[in-house]
């Protein structure tokens, strides 16, 4: 059973506090919707959860059956709209590299099946520089979900996705809830139904 805890979490940039005193306890099955105005700290919160930023105060702990895990990055999938990909690599090469550095199965058929799930199978061997914005976002989602990480953090995952991609994203979140935790940040009110818990920042 996985759980993510944020205790008295706060982040300051210079003299400006983005937020402080945040308390969260997310259990397996939670799909947390993080909402807030621009600059309210949605991305900052997700980056703190991911360990990409160090908190100014407080802690973020990922637990498995009550025991904190040492390096939570190994157990998370990350997808950010401004997350860059390597333009010289193909979608397949990205996923293969990802599987290899994460010590996940990297058989060709598995990788292509996973890309096909995100409707990238037919473009798997093209370089990312030839991908549209929506395709790149699909690839980010594919990387984030490969290996079924128990914690999925998505920062504006809907950006650039068409209706088919949005359905895929919704399915991904629901699947994640069956074995882990998902947190996604968005400004779009129509996606509120995707979450079973909501956090409003900046209010």
């Amino acid at each position, binding site marked *: 059973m996985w759980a993510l805890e944020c205790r008295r979490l706060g982040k300051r940039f210079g003299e400006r506090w983005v937020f402080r005193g945040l308390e969260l306890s997310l259990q397996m099955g939670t799909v947390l919707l993080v909402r807030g105005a621009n600059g309210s700290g949605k991305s900052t919160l997700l980056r703190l959860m991911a360990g990409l930023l160090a908190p100014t105060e407080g802690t973020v702990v990922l637990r498995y059956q009550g025991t904190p895990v040492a390096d939570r990055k190994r157990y*998370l999938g990350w997808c950010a709209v401004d*997350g860059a990909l390597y333009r010289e690599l193909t979608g397949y090469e990205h996923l293969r590299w990802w599987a290899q*550095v994460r010590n996940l199965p990297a058989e060709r058929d598995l990788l292509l099946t996973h890309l096909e799930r995100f409707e990238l199978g037919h473009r798997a061997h093209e370089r990312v520089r030839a991908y549209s914005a929506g395709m790149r976002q699909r690839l980010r989602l594919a*990387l984030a979900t490969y290996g079924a990480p128990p914690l999925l953090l998505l920062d504006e995952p809907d950006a650039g996705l068409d209706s088919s991609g949005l359905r895929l994203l919704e399915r991904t979140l629901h699947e994640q809830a069956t074995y882990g935790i998902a947190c996604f940040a968005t400004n779009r009110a129509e996606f509120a139904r995707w979450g079973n818990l909501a956090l409003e920042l900046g209010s």
Partner: protein
Amino acid sequence: MRQGIVASLLMGVATVVGIGFAALGQTLSAGLQAGLFWTALLFGLFPALARGFIVEEETGTADLLRIGARPASIFWGKWLFHATLYALLSVVLVPLYALLVAPPRGHALGWLLLWLGGGFCLTSILTLCGALVAQTTVRGALLAGLTFPLLLPLILVLIAGTRQALEGALPAEPLQGIFGYALALSAGGAWVFEKVWQE
């Protein structure tokens, strides 16, 4: 990175050609030859090594690396790439230097050990400093400022050792110094990198 490699090669070749032109017809002392040799290699290394981590931060792929791979893997992976560049640069510049400036002579084993040890240390320092500087916004001057105190002792020892090798002696003491420096960089470099790499 392709641009960085090309820039490195061009910079290195231009440096050696410039030195060769300036030294035309002159007999250079062993000390001067040694200094110019390592200067040429260093000038060739700088353009690509400085970009190693900076390009990851600038293009935004650094987060992918932070999430995906362990810091030690990233450090040594970048180091391996930089060491390969050092070898490539040497393949081009050493013969060119021999042709244009002065042919190699002296203690062959000493040369080889200096090249190996110096290369290990140079790539370690520039890999680590590149990672440090990539986290900042003021990069150019900072990289030079950070690397100078680490590079200076190494370069002085390399020049001293190369001079001895040119004079036909095994540069035992400089090699001991380089070996110690390499040990310290091996032990400390990856550890410092891990602290720097995570915010």
